[in-house]
């Protein structure tokens, strides 16, 4: 539980930054950057946080289900353009994935 409290504290700090400076970056991402800064300063991951991470990681897809189910509200557009939009989403991913792979795999990595 202390691990979860650390995560929530960072998330709240992220919300605070978001409000104060009207940043276009979401609070959760800001919270993640805050936690990353804390870990860099500490120089290690506290055991409680390690424990929370091991517990929560396998559950990540569960927390994405409610928002993903929102697809049921998009009936009209899906009925009219669904197959076209699906084709566009599939086709557009191919060059994106290949460009990423090409850039990351080009030459030798020094590690």
């Amino acid at each position: 539980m202390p691990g979860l409290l650390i995560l929530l504290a960072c998330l709240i700090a992220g919300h605070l930054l978001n409000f104060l400076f009207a940043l276009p970056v979401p609070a959760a991402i800001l919270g993640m950057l805050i936690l990353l800064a804390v870990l860099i300063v500490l120089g290690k991951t506290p055991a409680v946080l390690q424990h929370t991470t091991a517990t929560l990681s396998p559950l990540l897809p569960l927390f994405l289900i409610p928002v993903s189910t929102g697809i049921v509200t998009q009936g009209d557009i899906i009925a009219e353009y669904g197959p076209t939009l699906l084709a566009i989403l599939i086709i557009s991913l191919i060059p994106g994935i290949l460009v990423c792979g090409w850039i990351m795999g080009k030459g030798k990595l020094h590690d």
Partner: protein
Amino acid sequence: MTELLQLPLFWASMTIAAFVGGQQIYRLSGNSPWLPPILSSVTLLVGVLLITGTPYSTYMQGGSLLHVMLGPVIVMLAVPLYQYLHTMRRHWRRIALAIACGSATTIAVAVALTYWWIGDIPLSRTIATKTITTPVAVAVSEQVGGLAAMASAFVIVTGILGGLMAPPLLKLARRDQPHTVGLTLGICAHAIGTSRALELGQQQAAYAALAMTLTATLHALLLPSLLPWLI
């Protein structure tokens, strides 16, 4: 029975049941990348909502009990990110280039195709937010005069498709080193891709989390000023 369908706790339980069901389907299929738990779970849940005639807003009163955990879980991604920071620091130029060019390519193709095939400007602007994690995508699409409700659908479908397509495509291109797969999943498939990367391994998850964060930040900053100028 009708009272049960109004009960938030019932829908929270159904979400967990769908997740367990989705994981079972995934396991029974021999961990097929074509059947990620998120896809089967959402399909099961959408089926239940349609059969019972339950509106999404009623469902979400229960769904939000689980949705609230998405925030802390995204913050948590700093842990694997920190663990691989040293390795990544050595080739940050390559990573920055992959994020900028990779996300620009997939978005440019999607926007151009939507504009040519459908010709609807709000829809074209909305599809530009497809590689950004959901909360940012909705905000950005509102800013550029897109359709906020549709933005989350594009993001989710892209996440599922990216999670499905990236690992086999990279294997085909013989670019399936852990860091390349993770980074590509984060760039092309945001949070859903990151959850797929978590299944593949810690290194993949770290790179995916890094790529997702940087892509979301980059696009949230650039798209509102770039899009109205392009279309």
